[in-house]
Each structure stands twice: as structure tokens, then as C-alpha cells.
């Protein structure tokens, strides 16, 4: 190990120290002061974010080729930090009402984030798998975090069983890959697998199934709605964006970096997966009357849009077009992360009464009862639909640019039509908030200052990134360039 190997690892090191600090401090803090853990986590995460900035531009592979700190990983890590901070801010009020332990939540969350960091930087299949497991194991815990709630138990168990199943498939694919190529280096497997005939296809098939399982692509999505619905709502917000970001880091590493050269071979699979995922997710979301479940299905549809970006990458060999495809994935993951976690938190704010499970009825007449909250939710819904000037619009636009530029205009048309389909159920929330009268016994609203602050930040970010996305785009261009 070289000394500057560690320098490249500063963000991960700080994050590890932070996890251990939170874990230890939690043991000694009296109950009345537990709230201090939230500022500790947030400030720590901000430090991690700053450290990630410092390692941008170094583009070096460390630990004898097992770990790669390039600008692409930095982009994923910064997005991870943003999502982590929001998750840490959104959760406490909800947890406190249900007497769920804040310290454990923060620790588990940070472990999961660390897994995402490792995943984003892995340049070897072994590191990749380690990162993945480090990310999803805590995620299983988060899904079942509400120990006394049956739905949470069910969701956690389902998530765990199916997730382990997917991990096993992925691992099986990795072992086939190793058997065929004699290497676990991501940068080497592409050339070797390409020439290994049907067995190579089996390996690639296993890797695809395992990876898209994690991203919740149709037809590997069945775990999503139950896992998301059962988890405590703000945690669902994190689950719907965090592990998804990790899954896309994995997909980008594995497919764009590892198998990039044979892109045209797997383009068909990705394009069909994208089409199935966005359409399937949307159609099922249409039928939901529970907002939490609707958001869960719609997160599947968003996965489809992001996979469309990956398909665009596969379809072209032009470096600029490929760069654009990678940027579209990064931008979408970040933008989607912010808006979706915030949308879930609004659902959570309406669950101050723990018997409520986030039905549409809770939103009825919200505009009259809480105009600011309704406006925030309306902006988030418009952003998720993809109406300008919001980040959701620009994310979709980015995918459209990438697909059209790569010469797969039909996929762009599919994305556009699906966005119109999605409008139907996203706007239904606005219909309930603005155009219906409140229930006789309206859901009490949680207005804790932390949640409100985080919501305000998210909504401001959603609009600011929609109006002036240029700094982010410039940054993402450099990130994507480090891959190609």
C-alpha cells in the first residue's frame, strides 16, 4: 500500500470514523440529548462531501487495482452525501413519534452510505460485491426498522430474502466471469468475456439479472412495493433513492466500464428492460390509491428512464454521445434522489398519526390546511412528472438528449409518452390537495423544524437545479470524461 493510497481514500476514512463516532456517542448520550446525533451526522457528512471534492481530479487506482478514485466515483459520492444528509434530516421527527431509536438509524444509514461509496469506486468485482453488500445489508435493516409494525416486518423480510437471492445471482455471475476470464478486474473482463461464447453470455446474463434486480427493473421489481410500503416513510425515501443510486453505480461500473466495448451486444437487453420498466412501473402506479405505494411503483418507472440512458450508452460508440449518456444517468440519479426523498418525507409528515398509511385521502384539501406544504408537494409532483422549470424536467431532458443523440429516438419517444402517462397519477395528488375538500377528520401534520428545513432545501434545490443546471452539468461532464 502506497502512502497516497490513503490520501485518495480520505472521504471513506472520514465516513468510517463518523460511523464509529456516532455508534459510540450514542451509547453514552442520555436519552434527552439523543437529538445531538442528527447534527453530528449531518456535519460529518458535509465534511465527507468536502473531502470528496478534494479527491476530485486525481483519477487514480489504488490498492493494487481494487479501488478506483476517479471523477465518476466522486460524482456518485457527492450525490450519496446529498441523499444522506436529506435522509438524516427527514427521519428524526418521524422516528421520535414512534419511539424508534435515532442512534441506530444514523449508524445504519451511515454504513449504507459507506457501502455506496465503496460501490462507486470499485474497480474489481470483489470490491464491487463487498460494496454492494455493505450497502444493502443496512438497507434491509432500515426496511424492517419499525420492529413492532407488521408491515415493516413483512417489507424487511421480503427485501432481505429477494435481495439476498439477487446478490447470489450476481455473485454466481461473478464466479462465472472469473472462471471464464481468470480475472476479476472490471477493466479486463470486457475483452475476455466477449470472446468466450455462450458461457460468456450466461455470465453476462447473471450479472444483468443481479444488477437490475438491485435497481428494481421490471421484471425483477416485485420486492419493491412491499419493501417500500412497509418501511418507515422517511426511510422509504432513502431506500427508494440510496440503494438505487448504488445499483446504478454498479451498472455503470459493470456495463459502461467493464463491458463498454461490447455495448451493441447488450443494447437490446437494456433497451427492452428500459421499456418494460418504465411502462410497467407507470401502469401499475396508475392503479394505486396509496401515495406511498404509488411513489414506490413510480420509482420503478424512474429506474426505466435511467436505464434508457444506459441503453443509449450501449447503442453508440461516439465518445461525446457516450459521455452524454453517462451524464444523463448521473444527473437523473441526483435529481431523482432529491425530489423523491422529499416527496416521501411529505407523506411521512402526514403520518403523525401512526395509524395512517399514506392514503390519497390524507392529501385531500391540504392546500387549504397547509398551503406551503401543499405547494411544496405540488412542486415535487410536477418535478417528478417532468414539468419545467424543475430538476425532474431537466433530468428527463438529459435522458432524451442522450437517447436522441445516440440514435435511439424510439426510446426517447417511449420516455416522452411514459412521462405523459405518469402525469396522470402525479397530478392526482395535486387534484386531491387543491381540488377536493378535506376529510372530516384530517390527518394531523408534523411540522418539526428539521423536516421543514430539509423540505425547504429540497424544494429550493429542485427549482434551482431546474433553472440553472449549468454548474452541475459542467461537473458531470468531467466526471463522465474520467470513465471514457
Amino acid at each position, binding site marked *: 500500500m502506497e502512502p497516497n493510497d490513503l490520501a485518495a481514500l480520505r472521504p471513506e476514512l472520514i465516513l468510517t470514523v463518523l460511523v464509529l463516532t456516532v455508534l459510540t456517542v450514542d451509547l453514552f448520550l442520555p436519552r434527552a440529548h439523543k437529538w445531538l446525533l442528527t447534527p453530528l451526522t449531518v456535519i460529518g457528512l458535509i465534511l465527507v462531501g468536502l473531502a470528496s471534492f478534494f479527491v476530485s481530479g486525481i483519477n487514480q487506482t489504488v490498492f493494487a487495482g481494487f479501488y478506483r478514485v476517479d471523477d465518476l466515483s466522486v460524482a456518485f459520492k457527492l450525490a450519496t452525501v446529498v441523499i444522506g444528509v436529506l435522509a438524516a434530516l427527514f427521519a428524526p421527527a418521524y422516528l421520535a413519534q414512534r419511539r424508534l431509536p435515532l442512534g441506530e438509524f444514523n449508524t445504519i444509514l451511515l454504513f449504507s452510505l459507506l457501502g455506496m461509496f465503496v460501490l462507486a469506486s470499485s474497480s474489481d468485482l470483489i470490491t464491487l460485491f463487498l460494496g454492494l453488500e455493505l450497502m444493502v445489508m443496512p438497507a434491509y435493516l432500515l426496511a424492517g426498522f419499525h420492529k413492532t409494525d407488521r408491515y415493516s416486518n413483512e417489507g424487511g423480510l421480503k427485501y432481505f430474502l429477494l435481495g439476498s437471492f439477487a446478490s447470489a445471482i450476481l455473485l454466481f455471475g461473478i464466479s462465472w466471469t472469473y472462471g471464464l476470464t481468470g480475472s476479476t478486474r472490471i477493466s479486463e473482463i470486457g475483452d475476455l468475456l466477449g470472446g468466450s461464447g455462450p458461457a460468456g453470455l450466461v455470465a453476462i446474463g447473471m450479472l444483468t439479472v443481479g444488477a437490475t434486480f438491485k435497481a428494481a427493473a421490471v421484471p425483477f421489481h416485485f420486492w419493491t412495493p412491499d419493501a417500500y410500503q412497509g418501511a418507515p416513510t422517511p426511510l422509504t425515501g432513502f431506500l427508494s433513492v440510496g440503494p438505487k443510486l448504488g445499483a446504478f453505480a454498479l451498472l455503470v461500473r459493470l456495463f459502461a466500464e467493464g463491458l463498454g466495448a461490447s455495448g451493441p451486444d447488450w443494447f437490446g437487453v437494456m433497451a427492452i428492460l428500459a421499456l418494460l420498466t418504465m411502462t410497467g412501473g407507470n401502469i401499475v402506479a396508475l392503479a394505486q390509491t396509496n401515495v406511498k405505494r404509488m411513489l414506490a411503483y413510480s420509482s420503478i418507472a424512474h429506474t426505466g428512464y435511467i436505464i434508457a440512458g444506459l441503453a443509449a450508452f450501449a447503442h453508440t460508440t461516439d465518445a461525446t454521445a457516450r459521455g452524454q449518456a453517462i451524464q444523463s444517468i448521473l444527473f437523473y440519479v441526483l435529481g431523482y434522489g432529491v425530489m423523491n426523498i422529499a416527496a416521501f418525507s411529505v407523506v411521512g409528515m402526514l403520518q403523525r398519526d401512526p395509524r395512517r398509511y399514506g392514503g390519497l385521502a390524507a392529501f385531500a384539501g391540504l*392546500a*387549504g390546511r397547509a*398551503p406551503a406544504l401543499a405547494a411544496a408537494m405540488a412542486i415535487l409532483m*410536477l418535478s417528478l412528472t*417532468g*414539468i*419545467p*422549470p424543475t430538476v425532474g*424536467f431537466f433530468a428527463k*431532458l438529459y435522458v*432524451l*438528449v442522450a437517447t*436522441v*443523440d445516440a440514435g435511439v*429516438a424510439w426510446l*426517447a*419517444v417511449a420516455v*416522452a*409518452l411514459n*412521462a*405523459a402517462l405518469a*402525469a*396522470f397519477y402525479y*397530478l*392526482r395528488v*395535486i*387534484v386531491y390537495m*387543491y*381540488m377536493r375538500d378535506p376529510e372530516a377528520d384530517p390527518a394531523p401534520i408534523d411540522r418539526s423544524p428539521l423536516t421543514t428545513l430539509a423540505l425547504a432545501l429540497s424544494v429550493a434545490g429542485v427549482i434551482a437545479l431546474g433553472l*440553472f*443546471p*449549468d454548474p452541475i*452539468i*459542467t461537473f458531470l*461532464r468531467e466526471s463522465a470524461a474520467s470513465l471514457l
Partner: protein
Amino acid sequence: MSDLPVLTLVVFTPLIGVLLLLFVPRDWTRAIRWIALLASLTSLGFSLVLLGYQPAGAEFQYREDLSWIPAFGMRYTLGVDGLSVVLVVLTTVLSVVSIFYSWDPIRVRVKEYYAAMLLLMVGMLGVFVALDLFLFYVFWELSLIPMYLIIGIWGGPRRIYATVKFVIYTLVGSLLMLVAILAVAIAHAAAGNPFTFSYETLRGFGYTDGLQALAFVAFFLAFAIKVPMWPFHTWLPDAHVEAPTAGSIILAGVLLKLGGYGFLRYSLPLLPDAAVSFAPIVIGLAVIAVLYGAMVSMVQPDLKKLIAYSSVSHMGFVMLGVFVFNTQGLQGAVFQMISHGVTTGALFLLVGVIYERTHDREIAHMGGLNARLPRYAAIFGLFTFASIGLPGLSGFIGEFLVVLGAFQYSGWVAAATMLVVIISAVYMLWMFQRVFFAVPSDWMRRAWPSLTDMSRNEWLSLAPLIVLVVGLGVYPGPVLDAISGPVQRILDIVNASQGLTSFSPPW
């Protein structure tokens, strides 16, 4: 030309109004109404500055050009030609009228209502002045959401069905248009040019036939749904019937014109070959729309629905004029847009007047109103005649020019549309007779005491429209002069095109 960013002021003054509204307590309704009215009046004032547009000068004047998202070559480019100027002024006038008219009828959620109206103004005005395709798209979508709320919150009993239908229809078209915009910009960039969405740069680039055909279809869907052309019109009657009066005024007066403007500004100059090749189909659809709208209007039991279907017919004239590709047709189309905006806006307002008093719009329930409300009857009569196209009023000029243009294209098309001028007289006059002269129904007799003639506010809202409908009818010169330059440019581009060559459409 001064250095003042007039267009930005026109477009974004209403937004300042919205920001002010955010800080006003919601029960200060008087203050809210005044802020909204002043913001829209200020915007109207700035838009009048644009009348100083020089027809002989540069194509686009009052230009503003700022970098916005350089990574994708998106710019904040604004500019107006004669076509934009007349539509901008139409928009500001009708917006002020609707905001002023809403003074009494809107009593719930006043703050949200005026915020939505002002935001709607921003979106509509932006569409007419944007010269960057991306910016245009952003404004286009921006105009959608406020109308969605206006119909959905302040509308009639089936408002939610109507507003969702309106949004989904429009979104399908506009999202496909977004793909087409990207395809056009990317095709331009693929030829080695810098990535740009600038209208002036993208126009005149030789796009391949396949791209032109597909992009034209996508643009066509977006604009045809907005216009709306038969068979994409089914959202319109629902939206109109459920919308509050001011919403109907804006919807008929301005939002439909976004579609017509889109054809003139984007479809024809960007994709002239496809436009030439597809013209026969569009003309066919336009003739169907003209006939269909008129015939369906005859049997409508509801006043608003009748006017909504007559809009389908009138906007069919616009589409016909646009696609016959001659000076008379195009000028007639633009004039018809303006005239339809004023006339139909006024008619919806007048329906709103009676609806405020009786909460009913059934033609069968009315009758004998002439005796009870003579002034109202007189004004209603004026706009009925304007809608029919009586010479001396604005409706005549547009229809006459379009038919003249259609005649040069084909005598049969002209004959079919002339027929509709007669049908329109049938449905409008029959409606007028049943409402104002027939024996009052029992229902109306019971409502008799609550009937009062037009209030001062209603007069004030209508006054500008009366002036316009008579003024434009007697002296259409200024508008025709203003649009002759843009019309000629469009014709130069379209007539130089031979249509699609390698791509042969299936007909």
C-alpha cells in the same frame, strides 16, 4: 430602440405580481385583486411599447439575448416580429380583461386564483416572444399548469375530469414535441455546428426528409391538440364547460392561439418540406373541423358548449388559412386568430354574465331576456354578429381572407368553407333568438327577479373588446401591415420548397 429590456418586463411583470402576492395575507382580498390588476396592467402597458415595432426594420426587434445553460447551448433569447406583437397585445389585453372580470365572481381562494392567472400570463407571453426552442418549450409547459389549476379548482361540477383530460392531452403532444425539438437541434449539431436551440440558426438548415417528416408529425400533434384540430378537439368542450368564465376567456382567447402560432413560427419555417408534403392532409382535417364544429354547434343545448364547438370551427379556418400557403390565406389566418380571440373571449364573458345571475347555461331554460336585459342583449348581439362574420366587424375580415386564399388553392375547399359561413349564421342566430326573443321558460320566469342588467365592472371588462371588435372590423390595416412582413417570410420559405423528395408519404 431603447436599452430597456421591454420584452422581459412584459413577460415577467406578472411574475413580480405573484411574488408580491406570496407576502399578502390571504384574507386581504381587495389588496390581492389590486396587486393582480396592477401587475397585469403594467404588463399591458409595456406591451403597448411594442406597437412601436418597425415593419421595415430587422425581422426580430426588441431582442434580448443572454446565455442561460451554455452546456447545451440554451439561451435566453427574446424578440418579436409583427406576428408576435399582435398576439402579445391580444394576450395582455385579454389577461387584464379576465383579471378585472374575476373581481366579483371569484370569491374562494382568491390569492391562489390570481397567482395562477398571473403565472399563466407569464407562460403565454413567453411563448410568443421566445426565440430559443428550449426557452419556448419551457414557457409552453409553464402555461399548462396554471390553467390546470384554474379549471380544476374554480371550475364546474365535472372540473376534475375536464382538467385532467386537458392536461394529459396537452402533455402527450408537448412531450413528443420536446423530442422533436431535441432531434432537430441534435441533427443541426451533428453536422459540425455548435449545439444550439436558437430559432434563427436552426431555421433554414437542411434537415433530412425522414427527420422532417417525423419532427413535423410531433410538432403537428402538439400544436393540433392545442388549436384544437379535429380529431384532437375532444378536450376542448369539456374544458370550456367546466372552466370558470375568466378561464374560458383565456383558453379560447389565447391558449388556442398558441397552437396556431406554433404552426406559423415553428412548423412551417423549420420544416418547410414536410409542411408542403403534409399540407393536403392538414387542409383536409381543417375542412372537416370547420364543417364538423359548425354542425355540432347547431345541436348544443349548453351556451358554453355551443361557443366551444364554434371555436373548433373558427380555428379550422385558421388552420386552413395557414396551410394553403398564400398571402391572403396566411394573413386571414392570423387575423382570424386575433378576431376569434376577441370575439369568443367576449362571448364567454357574456355567458359568464348570465351564469352569474342564474347559475345556468341551458339554452332551453332561457328566453325573453331581451325584454328584461336590453343592454345585455344588445352587446350579446354585437358579438354574435362578429362571430358570424358580419362585414364591419372583425370576424368578417379573417374569414373572407381565408376563403379567398382557399379559393386559390381549390374551388371545392372554398365552397365547402363558404357553406359554413351560412351554417354559423344558423347556429348563432338560432341561439340568439332562443335566448333573447323566445317566450321565457317557466324556469326563467322564476329567476326573473334576480336578473339585473350588466354591472359597471362587466361593462368595463367588455369595453376594450367592443372597441377592438369594431375597430379591427372597420380599420384592419394596422394589423394586416404588422403581419405582412412575417407572413411574406414564411411564404418565401415554404414556396421555395419542393416538398419531401426521398420520403414518399403513403398517399
